[in-house]
């Protein structure tokens, strides 16, 4: 299991694996928003939390098709399917690798981009906390979408179409935490909901993703 995680991490960081591409995309997105809505603090501040969450979500989406596509092409996915490690475990490890290579850099970069968008200082810890709790669910759901579309020729666009609606609850609660944090309100309720979604997704979606992979490897 650990070996698989190490291998996936190595593949992502080496060989132009697109490590950091997500963060670059996130930066561009945050830089483009002020051009669209105007540079005034009064215009940016109310939407900063939403932009940051939507940006993180889209940046996460960008690298999803790589979770299984490369392994499917060179046949190593078939090997993994016959390995003693259950396919559910493989899926979970791959989602974890995706989270470490995409989610963690996004979280690390988010405070800086928050400054760019004039996110109130009081909301910064909430932004970090909500991303930390929410992004694992994004990676896991993404792995599910990637498992469904792995054998398809034009899977990329379909993947976004399938995965983005699944992101809606996470986005709603995540952005709500930051918004309430910025206003100094109570964040306990959305935080609990977000944590509940992530826990449920991490527990159940690997089974759905593994089922989809088995169909595609048949």
């Amino acid at each position, binding site marked *: 299991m650990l070996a698989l995680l190490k291998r996936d991490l190595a593949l992502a960081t080496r060989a132009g694996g697109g490590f950091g591409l997500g963060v670059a995309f996130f930066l561009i997105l945050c830089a483009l928003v002020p051009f669209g809505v105007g540079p005034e603090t009064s215009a940016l501040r109310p939407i900063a939390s939403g932009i940051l969450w939507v940006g993180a979500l889209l940046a996460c989406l960008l690298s999803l098709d790589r979770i299984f596509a490369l392994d499917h092409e060179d046949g190593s996915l078939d090997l993994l399917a016959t390995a003693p490690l259950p396919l559910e475990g493989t899926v979970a490890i791959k989602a974890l690798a995706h989270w470490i290579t995409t989610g963690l850099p996004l979280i690390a970069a988010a405070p800086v981009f928050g400054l760019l968008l004039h996110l109130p200082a009081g909301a910064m810890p909430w932004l970090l906390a909500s991303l930390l709790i929410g992004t694992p669910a994004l990676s896991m759901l993404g792995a*599910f979408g990637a498992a*469904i*579309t792995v*054998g*398809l020729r*034009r*899977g990329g666009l*379909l993947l976004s*179409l*399938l995965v*983005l*609606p*699944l992101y*809606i*609850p996470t986005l*709603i*609660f995540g952005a*709500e935490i930051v918004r309430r944090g910025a206003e100094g309100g109570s964040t306990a*309720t*959305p935080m609990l*909901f977000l944590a509940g*979604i992530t826990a449920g997704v991490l527990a159940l*979606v690997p089974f*759905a993703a593994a*089922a*989809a992979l088995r*169909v*595609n490897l*048949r």
Partner: protein
Amino acid sequence: MSIWEYANPVKFMRLSGAVLPYAVAGAAICTIGGLVWGFLTPQDYKQGATVKIVFLHVPAAMMAINIWVMMLAASLIWLIRRHHVSALAARAAAPIGAVMTLIALATGAIWGQPMWGTWWEWDPRLTSFLILLLFYIGYMALWAAVEDPDSAADLTGVLCLVGSVFALLSRYAVLFWNQGLHQGASLSVAPGERMSAVYRYPLYLSMLGFFLLFLALLLIRTRTEVRRRRLAALQARETRA
């Protein structure tokens, strides 16, 4: 003889062929009757003539949700018992559900313009229906994208399961996110809140009509899918021979 006998395509074709004329006739009579009756109802003292839209909006919204539930049930039957007709019925239902969702959204927007003063409001019910439409679109796109029919049925079945959970989750998340303008259920059982009988009976007829319309369209579309499957099988046999 159990109900599963009808999962056999030949038996299904025979039975659906026998039922179809009645379903079509019933759908035509009830839908047209309900809508015409609804169109002729008197004006409401508050909403004026726009009350007539309810006879489209409520049945369409009801069917939009029920068709998804039916797809979920059909997907489960396919995943557990592997009856091909079930998978094909789920596929056949999706476009009907998408059109029903579109009708509910469109009539809602047209009604909201004079009543709420806006075409669109990020109200929980409206937003939930938009999300439902996204799920329908994704589901149909996946069916269209996968070539092998059994794989397509499996993958869309799994997607339908996961999607159902998330559609429900989104419904409550959206409720949390924004309290809405939309009025409560139109068919409340509590006396006093009830619609007056002038509107209630045409609404019932219209709902029955939309249900029969769905049934008739579902049967025809499933028959189409069965025929397409058979055609593909015959062609495959021919190329092999």
